[in-house]
């Protein structure tokens, strides 16, 4: 990353002023409008869909509740009012970040979700870190001379790996490292115990790194055909300098977009891995709460995931602007 920054800042001939940063933020504010619309749409849709899926009062009271108990619960939670009134009062509460209490544990739903956020970010962050640290060197190596026979073998291996879903890898890894070799725990999560991270992170990364490697390799291969590489070569730059100073920084621009997409997809999308390893994150909570029809938690989760995905996308955008001087709009 640092070489990319260095070449970017050497190309930009003016120093960055506070005003530049502000103009750079304008797209972010435009994006915030999108986020508001997204949250509104998702909350509304979920509200009506979830009400169709099941009766919250029935969930609260249990299946053997008497009609009187049901009526009491409906009155207590305001579920006896017309749906539209319920909707507006619900949206009013959402505006104040109040999603109600979890039907399962009577804790505030948003608080329950917020507990999960760091754990999911931990998992997703480490998976992306591992993915990038495998994919970028490997992809650069592959893209430098793509027709080389041993590199073609590695490409073939990547192609096969791309076809192995993360949860299949997870099960196979458990079979090998937890059941047969008894080296690592097959489930559980403690933030201070790195042993519990290894398998989940490797499972996620195993599915992510082949596509990133292929993108980096393709970008490096394409960059190697560019004129500036020819010029640098004519100027007597060494092979290593060609690759690391000129080709890779440009290839990483394309890869950064995919890294952002992959990271966003892991926020909640890691549900299967989290379930397999009993990793108490957002995806795990999503499955739990959807299956028990714990509507407030599902709503709070959707809200949280929307915000997180948005933040990831917005920061990918910012990183792009930082890395790629061509994207900076400058008045003369």
């Amino acid at each position, binding site marked *: 990353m640092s070489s990319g920054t260095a070449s970017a800042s050497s190309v930009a001939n003016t120093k960055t002023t506070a005003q530049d940063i502000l103009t750079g933020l304008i797209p972010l504010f435009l994006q915030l409008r999108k986020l508001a619309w997204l949250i509104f749409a998702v909350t509304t849709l979920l509200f009506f869909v979830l009400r169709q899926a099941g009766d919250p009062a029935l969930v609260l009271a249990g299946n053997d509740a008497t009609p009187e108990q049901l009526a009491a619960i409906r009155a207590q939670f305001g579920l006896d009012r017309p749906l539209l009134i319920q909707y507006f009062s619900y949206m009013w509460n959402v505006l104040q970040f109040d999603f109600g209490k979890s039907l399962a544990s009577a804790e505030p739903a948003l608080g329950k979700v917020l507990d999960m956020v760091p754990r999911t970010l931990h998992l997703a962050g480490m998976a992306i870190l591992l993915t990038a640290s495998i994919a970028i060197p490997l992809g650069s190596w592959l893209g430098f001379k793509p027709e080389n026979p041993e590199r073609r073998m590695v490409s073939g291996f990547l192609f096969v790996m791309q076809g192995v879903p993360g949860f299949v890898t997870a099960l196979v890894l458990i*079979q090998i490292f937890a059941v047969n070799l008894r080296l690592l725990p097959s489930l559980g999560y403690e933030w201070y115990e790195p042993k519990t991270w290894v398998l989940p992170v490797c499972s996620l990364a195993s599915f992510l790194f082949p596509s990133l490697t292929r993108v980096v390799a393709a970008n490096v291969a394409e960059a190697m055909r560019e004129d500036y590489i020819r010029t640098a070569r004519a100027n007597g730059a060494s092979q290593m300098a060609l690759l690391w100073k000129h080709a890779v920084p440009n290839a990483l621009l394309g890869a950064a977009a995919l890294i952002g997409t992959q990271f966003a997809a892991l926020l909640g999308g890691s549900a*299967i891995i989290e379930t397999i390893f009993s990793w108490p994150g957002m995806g795990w909570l999503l499955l739990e709460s959807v299956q028990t029809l714990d509507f407030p938690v599902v709503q709070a989760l959707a809200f949280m995931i929307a915000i997180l995905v948005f933040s990831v996308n917005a920061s990918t955008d910012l990183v792009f602007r930082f890395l790629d001087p061509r994207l900076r709009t400058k008045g003369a």
Partner: protein
Amino acid sequence: MAGHQTSKPEGPVAIAKAEGASLNPLDPIARFNRSKLKQYTNIEIVVASILFIAIVILAVFGAFLQTHDPMQGDLMARFAKAGEKDYLLGSDHLGRDLWSRAVAGLQWSMACALTANIINLFIGTTLGLMAAEKEGWARTIIRQFTDTLQSFPFLVVAIVVVVIVGHGFVPLVFTLGLLAWVVFMRVVYAEATSIYQRDYVKAARIAGVSRIAIMFGHVLPGVRASLFVIFAFHFAGLLIAESALSFLGIGAPLGVPTWGNMLAESRQYLLKAPGMLMVPAGAIVLAVITMNLVGDGIASLSRKRGRSIDV
């Protein structure tokens, strides 16, 4: 991949001589070497075709190729190893034949992914073409909707919807079918907008060809190559999504022999019967790789690249 595309100016006879093949017009190998087919054939495409044909045969004639009833177990023959007691790939915790169950799972997965994929193709293409045609409210709404759908991790949306609509083939197919079309829409939109700027489309418009005829008769053929490629890659993605949802216990009904269910069952017997894990895992991986290979093959033939979706 590019190995066979180098043109040889000497002509077919010279090539045949150079490669030491006979010039007998009835010799099939020589005929193949001289034919156009050879130019378009490489090892990947051959492997992809063989695997693909095998999958199609298993999916269509699966009932005749199963050695046992996939649902009926023999409790006397639990955890049989591969090849034991005429179990080709062994048996599971209820003494059911893993090979027959894997074939049944293939039929389920293929039917599910194929139907969902066709629905995706139809929705995505139609919306993409409509959005590409001209600026206006249709484009705004369609793009906004696609962006909204895309900004959530697909699995999150799928989990919520599948749990709400319930177990079974039809709910699963429609969940995947109605939610996963974003790839098609985006590619069709991107390509069709540029095709709409071409002269021949403008000429057709001036000549008074109807909007629908332009859309499907003039623009759609230009997108066709990419659609084939996405269809294959997306098929692989849907296979993964389907088995993932079944694995979580929210896709296929419990008890139905699908790869996802088989994987979920295997988790309790990892020590006793690793085959219960390896058979469905291998089946998923083979199927996904086959579809990826087919996609790659079509892409290299049409020299266009599609994107695979990340689940």
